[in-house]
């Protein structure tokens, strides 16, 4: 997944016409969102029918199917940006050029920060959810499973909505709004003692999550040279994965001190404030959405 996810996410700009980019990104996200909902069921079904090895065979077959379909995909060559000699990037400095570009480009920096904030909440939720259902709601593992299902169903619903709306969601304002909504809905979900409110919160969290995913990648792609998309999207993945790990650790410390509702209120409020600050920053230094020139070190001249 470390290679396949950013590779898949790098394809849409070279796969479809520009006016279809946002919608295609939303559909690429939808493939993952469907997997979150259907994957566990498929795994459970395969184990029930064929034992553990059934799930592994199923996985191998789906990989092989994906491999067989891949030749259908025709990508145009990556556009060579101003200042890029077009030679393949190589070397350590070129490897880190994606991070440098993110650090120096406002819209990229803000979008990756949004990824970090949203995944920090996911990481917290990973640890908080079972404890919350048991200790705050006082409900069984069936209720926990039902809440997970509600999240998944509304995640897919949100993904379909994002695909339907396409370019209309592909702005930093919508991404920041989605991040803020993630914070609010996480607080509603994990901060309430009422199970009905928890279901409403988790469902809306699913929608907010889906709305962020595709548009944030469209922003990353449109704000960076095509020949750096792999590095930019891999960096975004690193930010998300690191945040999830940090979120689990953070939750471990906070929940033992303050319990789930207060912990999620604190971190969720921080995420909301971050979304507002990022939006204000975007409004402040808004510039025409042009692709910045490729930094020299992203090209081949960096071969050390």
């Amino acid at each position, binding site marked *: 997944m470390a290679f396949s996810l950013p590779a898949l996410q790098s394809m849409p700009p070279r796969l479809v016409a520009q006016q279809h980019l946002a919608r295609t990104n939303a559909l690429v996200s939808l493939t993952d969102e469907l997997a979150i909902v259907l994957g566990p069921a498929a795994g459970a079904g395969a184990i029930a029918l064929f034992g553990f090895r059934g799930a592994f065979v199923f996985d191998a077959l789906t990989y092989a199917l994906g491999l067989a379909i*891949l030749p259908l995909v025709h990508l145009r060559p990556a556009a060579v940006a101003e200042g890029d000699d077009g030679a393949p990037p190589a070397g350590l400095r070129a490897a880190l050029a994606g991070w440098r570009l993110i650090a120096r480009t406002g819209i990229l920096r803000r979008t990756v920060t949004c990824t970090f904030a949203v995944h920090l909440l996911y990481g917290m939720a990973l640890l908080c959810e079972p404890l919350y259902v048991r200790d705050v709601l006082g409900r069984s593992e069936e209720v926990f499973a039902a809440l997970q299902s509600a999240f998944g169903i509304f995640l897919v619903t949100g993904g379909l909505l994002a695909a339907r709306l396409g370019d209309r969601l592909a702005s930093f304002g919508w991404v920041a709004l989605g991040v803020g909504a993630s914070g609010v809905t996480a607080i509603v979900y994990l901060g309430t003692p009422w199970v009905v409110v928890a279901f409403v919160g988790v469902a809306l969290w699913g929608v907010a999550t889906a709305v962020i995913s595709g548009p944030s990648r469209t922003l990353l792609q449109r704000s960076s040279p095509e020949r750096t998309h792999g590095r930019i999207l891999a960096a975004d993945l690193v930010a998300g994965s690191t945040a999830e790990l940090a979120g689990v650790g953070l939750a471990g410390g906070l929940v033992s001190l303050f319990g789930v509702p207060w912990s999620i209120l604190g971190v969720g409020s921080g995420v909301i404030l971050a979304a507002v600050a990022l939006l204000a920053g975007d409004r402040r230094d808004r510039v025409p959405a042009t692709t910045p020139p490729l930094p020299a070190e992203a090209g081949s001249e960096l071969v050390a």
Partner: protein
Amino acid sequence: MRATEPGAASPFSARVATFLVGEALSAIGSWATIIAVWVYAAYEYDASAGDVALFGLAFVLPGIVLGPVTGLVIDRIGPRPTLAAAKVVGVAASLALLGAGRATSTPWR
């Protein structure tokens, strides 16, 4: 299927739609395996909570540690060959898991 000019397709063209369905199936297969591996470890190998947590780390850490390398590889050889190679590795890894049950020595025993 009618060929389209590279890079000018619609997401609803037959080729792109087929590709996206294939990717969805691959992702579903991966999630199925994640679930299976966790359960497999717990029931077949009687793994402890710490052992199972290691699976979670093993799942997330490569994405973090290899991030700069994966991005460079994608930009150097292109996303399609990278994705193809990742799928070949995915097939091999899934088939390797088939043999895990036959192993006489495991990290837990």
